[in-house]
């Protein structure tokens, strides 16, 4: 009897999961975009913990790394990996500053058009501000807990590298909960944000190694 009950609960939950996502209509999309734009304008700094999952189809487990992310308007982002290794990468305008467990290097993003575009996308996705970008076709979904937007690059070169960006937004605060970058092979990188602090003062010093 208990098993039967468990099975019923399981089926009910599973079907709920499948039924969770649906398309947003035009009014909902407009409202959602307005909310995001408002949040984005009011955001000067973001500090957050993150967990990154690198999924490669042929592996038994995703590669999990953890760290802290800091953003300061208009265009400074720091990703600081703390587990299982120490590594930080700072995007500062067109510059990229790396500290790989003590080995420091500067890289001019201008060297690689692809990385420059990726940086711009990262900054915009952290701010939740990808909607102005005419380089993507976008589709909008909603569930009980989140809004989801799928961005598909129009540029063939970027498309050959990243098939789509998927952003998950908190329904209440319109913050980015999760960024997923899907490769053409269906391998993907998923970054989940937790413990987010908005507009807490952040010194410029943080963005130098």
């Amino acid at each position, binding site marked *: 009897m208990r098993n039967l009950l468990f099975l019923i609960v399981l089926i009910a939950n599973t079907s709920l999961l499948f039924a969770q996502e649906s398309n947003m209509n035009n009014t909902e999309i407009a409202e959602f975009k307005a909310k995001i734009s408002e949040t984005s304008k009011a955001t000067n700094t973001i500090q957050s913990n993150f967990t*990154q999952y*690198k999924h*490669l189809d*042929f*592996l*038994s*487990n995703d*590669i999990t*790394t953890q760290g802290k992310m800091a953003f300061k308007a208009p265009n400074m982002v720091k*990703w600081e*990996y703390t587990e*299982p*290794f120490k*590594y930080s*990468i700072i995007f500062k305008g067109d510059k990229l500053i*790396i500290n*790989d467990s003590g*080995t420091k*290097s500067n890289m001019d993003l201008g*060297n*690689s058009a*692809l990385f420059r575009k*990726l940086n711009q996308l990262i900054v915009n996705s952290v701010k939740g501000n990808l909607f102005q970008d005419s380089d993507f076709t976008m589709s909008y979904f909603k569930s009980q807990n989140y809004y989801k937007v799928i961005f598909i690059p129009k540029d063939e070169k970027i498309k050959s*590298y990243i098939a789509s960006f998927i952003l998950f937004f908190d329904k209440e605060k319109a913050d980015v909960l999760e960024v997923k*970058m899907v*490769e053409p*092979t269906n*391998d993907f*990188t998923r970054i989940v944000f937790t413990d987010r602090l908005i507009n807490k003062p952040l010194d410029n010093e943080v963005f130098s190694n």
Partner: protein
Amino acid sequence: MKYFLTSLTLLVFACASFPKKNNLERSYGDIPTVINPYFSNLSKDYIYKAKINFAEKSFGGIFVVKKLGEEYYRVVFTTEMGNKIFDFTFIKNEFKINFILKEMNKKILVNFLRKDFYVLIHENPKVLDHYKNLGDTLFTETRIKNNTYFYLEEKQQLHKILATQRGKEKSQYIFSEVEKNHAKQINIRHKDIKLSINLKAI
């Protein structure tokens, strides 16, 4: 005449075999097999934090090796943020590039990487001979794809592979911090190209 004799001596010495140059003594008896066990477990994901130094450039990232079957491997290198830099498949004697970032796609570099990774994952090289030095190191001479390698073992544990050409050492593959057939640290050094690869298990 003196010059001729000197150059002849030099030439003979230069062409001497690797064991001769290094005072290795040939071991007699049955030639044992040598096994590289460091990427042999089908159920294990081998994940390393990597640094690849090529010429004046340095690429940091995550290095992944997975054995998918007999003589079938995937070798992938991504940035720390997860962007793929290269993705190779090795099946028996075949080599396939699934992806490589344009900036890395230099023929000389790809050939070296291909050769290096093939040595790393190759489990049962063809054994030609074996030697001993004054210490306890056993040198097993092997042949992989027409190249000669010496597998150095101490206490029945492989700790170094030397690639040689015309009796000279060309590259080193060093395995350290070994636990249960898992080399937690791997370093690859080349003598005739500014390429080094350092791997640390995570």
